[in-house]
Structure formats: C-alpha cells, structure tokens
C-alpha cells in the first residue's frame, strides 16, 4: 500500500529577483516586476519593493502571499513602534525585527527571500540579507530570488569587499558612486533576464538617500 502524498501544498513560488547595494551615503534597492506561477505569468507589473520606514525598504521574492502577510506584520509593528517611541525605526532595528518575525514562523516558514536596504544611524547605506527562517547578516550588497545565483557571482566580481570578519578591520561598503551603482544594477538585471525565465518585464529601482527616496523604472525583455 503506497503512502498517499499530499497533492496540495500551502506554498507556491512566484519567482522574481531582488538586489540591493549599499553605498557610503545611499542605498539602491531593485527588483523586477514579473510575478509568475509555474510557466505562466500572472502579472508584468507587480512591485516586490515595499517601503517599511523612511530609512528601511524591504524587497522580497518567493511566495508573494507570504510576502504580503510578512509586510503587513512589519508595517503594523512599525506603527506601534512609532506610537511608543515617537520616531521612525532605524534600519538595523527593522532588520532585527524582520529576523524575529521570520523566526517566529520557524515551524511553518514564510516562503519569502528578503533583502532589506536602507540607511543606518550614521547615514551610511546598509543592506541585510536573510534566509527564509530569519538568519541575517549585514552585507555591502545582496541578491535573492530566482536570478540570484546568476547575479551574485557578478556582484562578487565587481563589488567584492574585504570581509567584515577580518582583523585588522577593513571597510566593507562599496566605493561606487550612486550613478555607477544604478548602472551596475541595470546591467545585472538585463543579463539575468536573458537566462532566467522568471525575471523580466520591468525593473523597479529605488534609491534611498538621507533626503528621500527616488524611484526609477527600466524596461526589461518581456519574453
């Protein structure tokens, strides 16, 4: 008597890729706008980037329903924080909150692969990269999602900075200017679109600086 396997899974993968790069006084967060399921495209215009606070922007790929639920939890916790502390959450604080929120679903994980970008307390760019159950790390640049394995090696090649674990300590933020970082992101997504079926349609880029957030859009291949 063969074991009956469940034919319904609570998870689905909607694909997509997210990238973030931290600079000396800016942070670039980018994601494509294609949402798929299996071999079908559900939407060519679905934003995967969510602003959580003035200095913290979350970009997530994976199962978008879980991403939406996660984003709602974070937004409401941020609102409570603002009421209690009379100020916005800093990016490192939001990073830890996200890690704890993900871990609280350790036995029924959010199928969300997150990259959190923003500015830290000193105004320097910071990027935090996560796995699905909440382990996180501050890095100079990160990529998550279906195209991440195509993009990360290239970012390592262009941006690889000394590890923050080395002693004596060396600075790990990228020396790129904001324009160079945006250009790099566009290049990287154009290439990923060529070889990843789940990445494409349009690229949404958010540039976070101390004085505000700018959004840029670029068309990607729609096939």
């Amino acid at each position, binding site marked *: 008597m063969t074991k009956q396997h469940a034919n319904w899974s609570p998870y689905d993968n909607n694909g997509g890729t997210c990238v973030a790069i931290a600079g000396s006084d800016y942070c670039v967060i980018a994601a494509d706008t294609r949402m798929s399921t299996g071999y079908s495209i559900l939407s060519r215009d679905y934003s995967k980037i969510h602003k959580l606070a003035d200095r913290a922007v979350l970009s997530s790929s994976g199962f978008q329903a879980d991403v939406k639920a996660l984003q709602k939890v974070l937004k409401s916790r941020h609102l409570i924080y603002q009421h209690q502390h009379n100020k916005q959450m800093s990016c490192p604080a939001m990073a830890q909150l996200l890690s704890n929120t993900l871990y609280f*679903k350790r*036995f029924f994980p959010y199928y969300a692969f997150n990259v959190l970008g923003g500015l830290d307390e000193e105004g320097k760019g910071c990027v935090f990269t996560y796995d699905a159950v909440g382990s996180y790390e501050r890095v100079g640049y990160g990529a998550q999602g279906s195209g991440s394995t195509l993009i990360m090696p290239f970012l390592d090649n262009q941006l690889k900075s000394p590890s923050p674990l080395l002693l004596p300590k060396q600075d790990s933020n990228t020396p790129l200017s904001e324009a160079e970082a945006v250009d790099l992101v566009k290049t990287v997504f154009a290439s990923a679109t060529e070889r990843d079926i789940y990445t494409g349609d349009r690229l949404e880029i958010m540039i976070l600086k101390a004085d505000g957030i700018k959004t840029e859009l670029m068309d990607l291949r729609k096939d």
Partner: protein
Amino acid sequence: MKLDTSGLETTMPVIGFGSNSEMLDGFSSVPSFDLPRTTDFDGFQKKAVEMVKPAKGTTTLAFIFKEGVMVAADSRASMGGYISSQSVKKIIEINPYMLGTMAGGAADCQFWHRNLGIKCRLHELANKRRISVSGASKLLANMLYSYRGMGLSVGTMIAGWDETGPGLYYVDNEGGRLKGDRFSVGSGSPYAYGVLDSGYKFDMSVEEASELARRSIYHATFRDGASGGVASVYHVGPQGWKKLSGDDVGELHYHYYPVTPVTAEHVMEEAAE
C-alpha cells in the same frame, strides 16, 4: 504538544488598560510559535526544509588550555549547494565573558543565542551576579530539549570564564549537554579534530594555541566544501573574550604553503627541441 515558551516571555509592563490585545501594545501576550495544522508534522517539516533550504554547514572548535579557552570558526553558510555567504559571524558574543559558536541551522543558532543572551542578562539583574558557564549552557540545553524532535538544527559550544575558571560545554538540538575541554562541531569537524588533537598540549601559550586553532580551521576548510571564508579566532581569559585574528583561508593557504617560483627560461628551452 506543550511547548516551553518561557524563552519567548518578556517582562515588559502591560501598557494600556490591562487589555490583552496584541495590537494595542505588542507585548502583553506571550508570543508562541505558529504550528502548521497538519497530521504529519515530521513530513511537513522535511518538505519545508527542502523548500526553503535554510543556511547551514560549518567548522567550529573550542578548547581549554592553561591560559583560558580558545574558540575558532570558519564563516561560510551554504543553502543546499549554493554558498549563500562567506562572511557569517559564527562566534556569537553572548556577553563580554561568554561566547557561543554556531553550527547547524544559522537562523536557529542566531535566534537561540540571542535569546540566551537575554536570559543571562536577566539572571544578572535578578541575582546581582554573573551567570556561570554551566548555568548558561543548562538554560540553552533545556530550551532546546523542549523543542526536541521538531527539526531544530543546533550544534553549539558555550565557552566562557566564570568564578570556577574557564568553562566549555557542548549543547545540541537533541538537548544533549556535555562538559569537556576539547570540542569541534560541524561538517568539517573530523578534519579539524585531526589537526587539533595531534597538536594539543595543555601548557600552550596564547600564541601557540591561537596558531593551532587557526591551522585546524584552515585544514577543515581545505577539505570540507561546506566550510570556508574567514577563520576567526577568539580567546576567553579572566578579563573576558578578545578577538585575536580573522584571516581569509584562501590567503592562509599560501601562507602555509608558499608557491616557489619556477624559472621560465628552463621550460622554454625544453619546448624549443
């Protein structure tokens, strides 16, 4: 199944008019883990782990010697076959005189070590004295025991210096807790044990011990695919812990095995025949 949620409790005062609504103040109700509503918990966990592929894999080691405790680890995290990071902090600073190492699931280790740090601090505030290494490791072991069988993956060492001197305990997700003076945990541990055991002497100086620790991690990263990145070495003495070194293992390789340059003319002459 009744889970021990004491590790998640907070002693924050209830703000608001004694209401229990989580939305009002976010702190009053004791948080607990969401469990999936399924008849086959283990099967679900197996499938969930395959799907999300949390980061793991490692080499960590710690040993007690004359001058205290030496703790070392690599810094690679892998998700399945993909290296998700080469700069993971696997030596976690619980407080200024206690360290914890991370092996197994990265999120599990990070979360429970942070939780342990909170409990140690609460112990200090409640008892007006620092917690012992034995006590801290027991707190962690008991927490993990209550989640036994649910798929946590934690292989950690708690190293510190308390009133009884240097202390080292190994704690794992089965709830096991072992006192010892030499441990290595992780996928690269067999390789690290080889180098560590053959070079170990109780009467080593701090420099000799840190070199032994560094070399053990290097050899483990050389042979184990799931270990790599930066070899970090920490020393725990009576004054607390101090980070001694952080070296990229790629560079350590050429430090231990320098490449002798070959004269090019020799080769060219032979090819001209």
